């Protein structure tokens, strides 16, 4: 009798074990039944430390997800390290994340030089370099770098949109460009030239660069005005964009002014510059600015604000970086949920390359995230907007950027 009971219990036990084994998933390093380890590097120190806000926003978003039960029951362990925007440091931190911390993949690593430094290593070791936080063009190259994927519309796409608008509406104009002397600023110049084609040399009459260590760009603006241009493209980060907008107005210059969508925050750029000074500025953007009055009553904004107040309390509600971090984290969660129990590196890349028409709450209406096996550019669309002194008025249709002119 005892023997029968023992046998029966063992059979049940084995059966349960078997069932459990079937339910458990396939795991790459850093993934298990209970957690998913994600690695990230951000400049929390140094001159680019303003972007560290994005890392903090992502940490806060994953904290919310974890509190809501995690992804298919697994908690996210988000390990974010400081690289000070210095490529050697990025290499070191990424090696530590991959080799010591054994993360499943890298997410939203920030900066073009840092990402360039780690691209070869990650692809050689078949570790996903997902949704990199840079607007460079080169992350959409699935043939050569199948493990690297960008996220935001590239700066060149944006500049091409401006170029095409100019060709269509102001074909005889002369263009001046103010750009930051690094890959971010130069990409605008390149994109503009690509869109203008062989008219580029004739139309672009002056370019002036600045370094982030320069206190002001007033001198550059004066020089650009002296070239007689009637269009100005400003590829500058918020501080210098605000100075440029103000100086252009103060010296009485009235060009058609295109502004990079990096620097369109109402509270952080347009108001310090002087809201009336920027009237007429055109930009091409893809996200909702949290300080723009037109979104204040939208339910998506309310959700975002609630998240900020509960989970990202150290963040500034005027900082668009907090919207960026929120939106890119949502994209990742969608990918991870789609992976279900197959959390291998290969499957993560496969699902990342398999997004169709994902709508993000804080993206502009009409803009979706989509990827494919040959399309590693998740967001390709932007919409033109014009500053009217109070808000960014959207106009025209959603434009899809693409390679070449």
């Amino acid at each position, binding site marked *: 009798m005892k023997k029968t009971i023992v046998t029966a219990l063992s059979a049940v036990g084995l059966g349960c074990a078997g069932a459990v084994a079937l339910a458990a998933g396939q795991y790459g390093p850093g993934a298990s039944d209970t957690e998913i380890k994600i690695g990230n590097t951000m400049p*929390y*120190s*140094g*001159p680019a430390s303003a972007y560290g806000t994005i890392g903090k926003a992502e940490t806060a978003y994953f904290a919310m997800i974890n509190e809501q039960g995690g992804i298919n029951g697994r908690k996210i362990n988000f390990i974010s*390290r*400081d690289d*000070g*925007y*210095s*490529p*050697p*440091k990025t*290499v*070191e931190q990424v*090696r*530590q994340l991959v*080799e*010591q911390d054994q993360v499943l993949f890298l997410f939203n690593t920030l*900066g*073009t*030089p*840092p990402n*360039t*430094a780690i691209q*070869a*290593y990650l692809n050689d070791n078949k570790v996903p370099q997902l949704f990199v936080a840079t607007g460079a063009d080169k992350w959409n190259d699935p043939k050569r770098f199948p493990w690297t994927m960008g996220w935001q519309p590239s700066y060149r796409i944006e500049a091409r949109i401006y170029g095409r608008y100019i060709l269509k509406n102001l074909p005889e104009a002369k263009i001046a460009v103010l750009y930051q*002397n*690094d*890959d971010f600023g*130069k990409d605008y110049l390149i994109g503009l030239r690509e869109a203008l084609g062989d008219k580029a040399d004739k139309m672009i009459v002056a370019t002036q660069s600045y*370094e982030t*260590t320069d206190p002001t760009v007033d001198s550059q603006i004066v020089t650009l005005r002296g070239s007689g241009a009637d269009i100005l493209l400003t590829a500058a980060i918020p501080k210098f964009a605000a100075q440029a907008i103000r100086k252009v107005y103060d010296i009485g210059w009235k060009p058609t002014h295109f502004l990079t969508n990096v620097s369109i925050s109402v509270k952080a750029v347009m108001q310090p510059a002087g809201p009336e000074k920027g009237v007429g500025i055109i930009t091409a953007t893809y996200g909702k600015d949290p300080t723009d009055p037109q979104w204040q009553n939208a339910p998506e904004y309310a959700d975002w604000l609630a998240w900020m107040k509960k989970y990202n309390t*150290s963040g500034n509600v005027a900082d668009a970086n907090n919207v960026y971090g929120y939106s890119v984290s949502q994209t990742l969660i969608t990918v991870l949920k789609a992976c279900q129990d197959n959390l291998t590196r290969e499957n993560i890349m496969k699902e990342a390359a398999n997004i169709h028409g994902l709508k993000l709450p804080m993206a502009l209406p009409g803009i979706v995230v989509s990827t494919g096996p040959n399309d590693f550019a998740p967001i390709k669309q932007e919409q033109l907007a014009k500053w009217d002194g109070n808000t960014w008025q959207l106009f025209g249709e959603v434009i899809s950027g693409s390679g070449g002119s």
Partner: protein
Amino acid sequence: MAQDLTITSPDRFAVDRYAGLRIDAWRWLGALALMALASLLPFALSNYHVFELTMVMIYAIAVLGLNILTGYNGQISLGHGGFFAVGAYTAAILMHRYGVPYWATLPPAAFVCFVLGILFGLPALRFEGHYLALVTIAMALATPQFLKYFDTWTGGQQGINLVKPSPPAWLGIDRDRWLYFVALVCLLLAIRVAANMLHGRTGRAFVAIRDHPIAAAAMGINLARYKTIAFGTSTMFTGVAGALSAIIIGFVAPESFTLVLSISFLVGSAVGGIATISGAIVGGAFIEFVPNLANDISDAAPWAIYGVAMLLLMYAMPLGVVGTIGPWLGRLRRYLQPAADAASRR
């Protein structure tokens, strides 16, 4: 009690002994033990830690260069990041454009930086103290600008991606460990060259110039020549370190070589002991590890922790770690072998 005043000729063959072995034999044993440790360490540690130690050695060579110039010769430099960059880009351009094998890029990098250092040192003769600091800051700031401007050579913003070297197949070790040994050999060579120079005539001239330039000149030391040589050798060391860093990291870009790097070298120098050779290794370790530790301690304000660490170290050891501990060790040594000292004093 009267001292022993017997007049006996000192035994010319009496040699300092301790526990039966000559002192210099002990030194050799100690050095061998360290060498053995350094050689076996990479096999006991993971790839990542080996990589970290390699970076420590590279920064140590760079800081050693700064020690020669600022510590031994008294010429302050806040521009060594620029020379580090020149060495790195020399190696990168040679490897990338001309296919030069990685080990063969070190001598040209050394040569280029030596010449550049001499050329820089000549006008620097006119400047002292804060003015020299300004001139060297100009070097540190100008370098990224030049690197971005001459982009056909340097790749501009995009930088240069390098293929990492493969270890010789017959050795059977992986790339990280091979590069560790390459760096180790370079470090040992650098220490040897520096020690030779600094413990000899040149070194004494450097120190004399630092401590009392007028007396040094009065004694016949050619200030201009020695100061320029100090500059040249200093930048040569830092340039070689830069070349090694390009090889190890596999990527160079202007963002890697900002003013922050120059300041890090100076801080590493001060923390290790500005007028020492072994202090350079401590300085290299400080530069490599403390920012990471600071990050682990505080997510919100990592550089504040780094700054506090610098402050505390300067309060506790204003002459640097080796600069402060060195004399204690010397006293300890003398305490352990009074007989030897007595013999050498006669």
